[in-house]
């Protein structure tokens, strides 16, 4: 099993004919993902790696039965793209696009809730359930099917951690990149709920960073609801307050969002913390 996505998801790519679209459609097909449709207004009838392109999402959904959307369009068209795909009945939306205005993200995140849809991102690398599907831009080569669930606010840092797990022979059930923005659709808590229910997940890895209180909220949730072992790494212990550390969401603002606070919360929740990213693999190995 896996969480959020598996081999049944039929993926439609919005922004399919751009450089990134063409490249990642190939990568996803190579991973085994069912990429069934692409959408670029005005390019209906074309194909990208034999995947048919449609003028709008509704036609793509009607023709191919797509139920999942990967959003690769530029930031200023992202809100429209998400609304379009939700109105067309798509139930899982992965938003890779970065630099989306917060107010746009707030609107589509709540609209996704109204539509009972899962929305992952924005500003995220996507999600992979090894052996089943990969929806996003994560490098496919680092994964191995197994029993560790990973949820992360970071991109490459996650690749590092997943790669080190795989190198030690520890596979993953699902790895979900939540996104580096302050407003994201799917959170640590949403992922924890699913991992706890998932029979094939035996341990959970959380990759956090400074900014906001998502880790503190997760720690509280873990204490109350999670029985599986949880491991975590927090990036930004030495980040200066007030500076935006690459991600829009990674900022210590008004005294809130420090790594110290997050580490303290996780320690209280008996989450095992790693000093260095790759230590996670050692910790997991020792405990399961």
């Amino acid at each position, binding site marked *: 099993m896996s969480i959020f996505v598996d081999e049944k998801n039929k993926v439609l790519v919005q922004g399919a004919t751009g450089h990134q679209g063409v490249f990642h459609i190939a990568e996803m097909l190579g991973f085994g993902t069912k990429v069934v449709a692409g959408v670029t207004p005005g390019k209906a009838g074309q194909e990208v790696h034999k995947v048919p392109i449609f003028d709008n999402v509704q036609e793509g959904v009607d023709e191919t039965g797509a139920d999942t959307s990967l959003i690769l369009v530029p930031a200023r068209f992202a809100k429209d793209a998400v609304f379009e795909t939700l109105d067309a009945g798509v139930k899982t939306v992965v938003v890779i696009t970065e630099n989306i205005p917060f107010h746009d993200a707030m609107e589509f995140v709540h609209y996704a809730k109204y539509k009972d849809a899962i929305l992952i991102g924005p500003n995220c690398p996507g999600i992979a359930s090894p052996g089943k599907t990969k929806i996003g831009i994560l490098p496919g080569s680092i994964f191995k099917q197994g029993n560790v669930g990973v949820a992360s606010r970071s991109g490459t*840092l996650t690749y590092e951690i997943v790669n080190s797990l795989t190198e030690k022979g520890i596979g993953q059930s699902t790895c979900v990149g939540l996104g580096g923005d302050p407003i994201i659709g799917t959170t640590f808590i949403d992922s924890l709920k699913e991992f706890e229910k998932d029979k094939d997940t035996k341990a959970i890895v959380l990759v956090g960073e400074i900014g906001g209180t998502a880790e503190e909220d997760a720690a509280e949730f873990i204490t109350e609801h999670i029985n599986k072992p949880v491991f975590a790494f927090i990036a930004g212990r030495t980040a200066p307050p007030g500076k935006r550390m690459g991600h829009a969401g990674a900022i210590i603002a008004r005294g809130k969002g420090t790594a110290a606070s997050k580490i303290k919360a996780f320690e209280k929740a008996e989450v095992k913390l790693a000093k260095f990213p790759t230590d996670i693999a050692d910790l997991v190995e020792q405990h399961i």
Partner: protein
Amino acid sequence: MKLFEYRGKELFKKYGLEVPNGKLVSTEKDFSGLNFPLVLKAQVPIGGRGKAGGIKSTENKKDAISKLSQIIGMDIRGYKVGKVLAEEKADIKNELYLSISLDRTKKMPLIMASASGGMDIESVPDEKIIKEWINPLIGIQPFNIRNVVSKLKLGKEESKETSKTLTKIYKLFRDYDCELVEINPLIITSNGGVMALDSKVIINDDAMYRHTDIIPEHVELTPLEKDAKEKGITFIQLDGDIGVIANGAGLTMATLDALTYYKGQGGVFLDLGGTDDPEKVKQAFELMKKAKPRVIFLNLFGGITKCDTVATGVKAVITKEGINCPVITRIKGMNEEAAKEILKDAGLITATTLQDAAQRSSELVGGK
């Protein structure tokens, strides 16, 4: 983008909020049209300017000119004061606090208000802060306004005026894609009016493209900052002397954390974003050379591109342009062994783990 106080107040006026009569002053004649007593306020994009001497009251023009000369050019926590706002002193009956910010957990705008205005909101006990969340699907509603204003326990007329003010501020917050609008204090005047004595407005950088009427304050970029901006590379100047190049925000932060663990300290750092594009790595190297760090630490996770391809790119820069400090490299991902050979070949120190690399970098600048 953080607006200077006077810019925030220009927006307030546009939305029909009352602000004190005032203007930017730099010479004696600028005081014409203003009635004493006045308050002179240094325009800097950070808080705490009052304590730093950046706000001064003045009763007459002579005194004003003398105080103005004290404020202009003053250094407030690293910001040199270039602009001073002179405002007529307001008639304060009552000071309130009002802000609209983003609640990341609830994913919606949060209105905070307090009857204890004028003080730092973080020092107000939580139970004295009125909180009201606004759902972005429906925007602000009459009941939200009632909920906030009724708890402020104002008089009838004052409540009416404060309600109107809140409606206007929310509209500004939404129209201008704000991360924060804070008014502290928002005052009730003795004739029952409502006036914003201060303004803190932050507009979401990613939404600036739709607010072309907002002219950014002129910020002097260093040649390096300018260069990085043009290349789409995140450039942050920290206090240390180890230059860090990494890809992705999380990995970059983890790299800095590891250096600190080994008593090293990051200096300039360049985040390539979630990419391992050899061209971008090359550009980062060129930038880093100009920053003249004592050590360069390259920490890359090769995701989509193969590590040896990246290494070849790095080698090309080094070979072509030379480098005048040690370079510690650590590249992980597909074909990392081949990459190591290439880098070694170029005379670079190659490490296997982040720890190893961080430790070696730190040692080179005298860390542990």
